[in-house]
């Protein structure tokens, strides 16, 4: 295990938003540093030692990324992050095969960059099916099977959801896709380095990876593109033909090296880390349940990464709770902080009622989260939920036994 136990300064809030981003592992930074300074060569320079040195570094890192997902290094291309990888995978496949097939299947709980890409393709004349998910957040395989037609070119289903942390049945989805000769893309931004992934065993044809979700640098990601059977893509960025022509542009050597190292560390430590995080997750949930009633975990608790909890604290609005727990950095499913006052579309897709969606927080645990931080977080949450419930008219009514659904609310 890592020797580093704390990465935050004592005057900083406790970071519990590991699904938004992760701090970089100091070991990652260490291997990156020389590539910012004296090893600054362009990996595309074939004529001198600077270039060779940089090329060797990015290729080593490519191998480290490939190893994490059971791929061959030739199948990994660098991108700027998972958003670009998702764009390239979905648009690239759709546009390459559009003369034969024009149908794409995805789910309603995908990340915005997948949904927005699909919306764009719909405007271009493609047909997109957005599959619902079950109450636990997982895709029903029969629903998937029924949606596939002879025009379906691609199924894109995220490996792990960014809001609720649920793990989709990737191997089963891959099997169905292979049987129907449909490409399978998975957005693994939240999954890589957290759960074991194997592109062969899971029949995954395309996979998006992000650097900053796995303790690597921001601004780098990767896309796995299967070679056998071959997946072809239309490139989105034209230029010098780097990355097998799929993604032109000079590779950012330090970032590539950082992503590689982050994958290497994850490959080695994933098992132990998952066990440690599962304990912390359980500790937090037990701690909260010991002192609070009416709390609900959104999304399946078993098919879930251990670093995520998405909890509705009934009768307490999420944003007011976040304002209280100043010493904790979490995110809210109420989305009231954004201009739109709509609660999270992911929670809505699970059938979580709007009033409960407004009371939800996403709590992300990760490599540098300590037991002490979890205990402090539990104390703060209990204190503020209790305080806010004492001033909640809904809590008061619920205690009086009034059914909140029996009231005719004046929606505004």
């Amino acid at each position, binding site marked *: 295990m890592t020797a580093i136990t704390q990465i935050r300064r004592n005057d900083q809030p406790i970071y519990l938003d590991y699904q938004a981003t992760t701090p970089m592992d100091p070991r990652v930074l260490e291997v990156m540093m020389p590539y910012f300074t004296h090893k600054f060569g362009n990996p595309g320079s074939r004529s001198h030692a600077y270039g060779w040195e940089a090329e060797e570094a990015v290729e080593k890192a490519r191998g480290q990324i490939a190893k994490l997902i059971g791929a061959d290094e030739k199948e990994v291309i660098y991108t700027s992050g998972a958003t670009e990888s998702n764009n390239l995978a979905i648009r690239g496949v759709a546009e390459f095969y559009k003369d034969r097939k024009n149908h794409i299947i995805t789910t309603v709980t995908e990340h915005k960059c997948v949904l927005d890409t699909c919306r764009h393709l719909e405007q271009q004349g493609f047909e997109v099916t957005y599959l619902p998910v079950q109450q636990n957040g997982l895709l029903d395989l029969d629903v998937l099977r029924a949606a596939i037609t002879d025009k379906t070119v691609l199924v894109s289903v995220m490996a792990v959801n960014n809001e609720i942390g649920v793990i989709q049945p990737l191997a089963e989805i891959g099997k169905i896709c292979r049987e129907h000769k449909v490409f399978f893309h998975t957005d693994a931004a939240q999954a890589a380095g957290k759960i074991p992934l194997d592109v062969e065993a899971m029949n995954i044809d395309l996979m998006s990876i992000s650097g900053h979700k796995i303790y690597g640098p921001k601004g780098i990601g990767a896309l796995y593109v299967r070679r056998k059977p071959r997946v072809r893509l239309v490139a989105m960025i034209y230029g010098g033909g780097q990355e097998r022509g799929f993604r032109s542009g000079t590779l950012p050597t330090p970032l590539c090296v950082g992503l590689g190292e982050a994958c290497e560390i994850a490959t080695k430590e994933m098992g132990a880390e998952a066990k440690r995080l599962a304990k912390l997750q359980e500790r937090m949930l037990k701690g909260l349940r010991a002192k609070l009633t009416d709390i609900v975990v959104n999304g399946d608790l078993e098919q879930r990464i251990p670093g995520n909890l998405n909890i509705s604290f009934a009768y307490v609005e999420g944003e007011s709770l976040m304002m209280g727990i100043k010493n904790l950095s979490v995110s809210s499913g109420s989305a009231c902080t954004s201009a739109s006052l709509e609660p999270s579309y992911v929670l809505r897709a699970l059938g979580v009622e*709007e*009033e409960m969606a407004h009371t939800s927080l996403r709590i992300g645990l990760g490599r540098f989260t300590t037991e002490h931080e979890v205990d402090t977080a539990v104390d703060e949450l209990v204190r503020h939920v209790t305080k806010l419930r004492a*001033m909640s008219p809904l809590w*008061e009514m619920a205690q009086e036994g009034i059914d909140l659904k029996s009231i005719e609310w004046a929606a505004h």
Partner: protein
Amino acid sequence: MAYSEKLIDHYENPRNIGSLDKNAEDVGTGLVGAPACGDVMKLQIKVGPDGLIEDAKFKTFGCGSAIASSSLVTEWVKGKTVDEAETIKNTDIARHLALPPVKIHCSVLAEDAIKAAIADYRAKAKKEEPKEAAE
């Protein structure tokens, strides 16, 4: 989002949290908003024999701005006549707390809550009048 000091003060030290007897004749209760929209305010006023609002209490489910808006209006209505309290505008609340544009609806809800509480009080008072006349 950066909130004003006044808003944070009302959120952290809310004034007049609590409930009055909603069945009392001198108490008016306003319950506005909806759980599905993420905010519900309950505001109550108690009107003295002199026609002045002698007490006000609130409970709010909502964001920090909603809590602060309702806390502020309970302070404002105390000592006012019902007619005076009715003139409180959402723009006054928004200005006082320096609400950001996306939070203006919180001040609107607070204004609605006072109006609803006053309407409830008046409805009760009206019912009372014929009784008194009969005596």
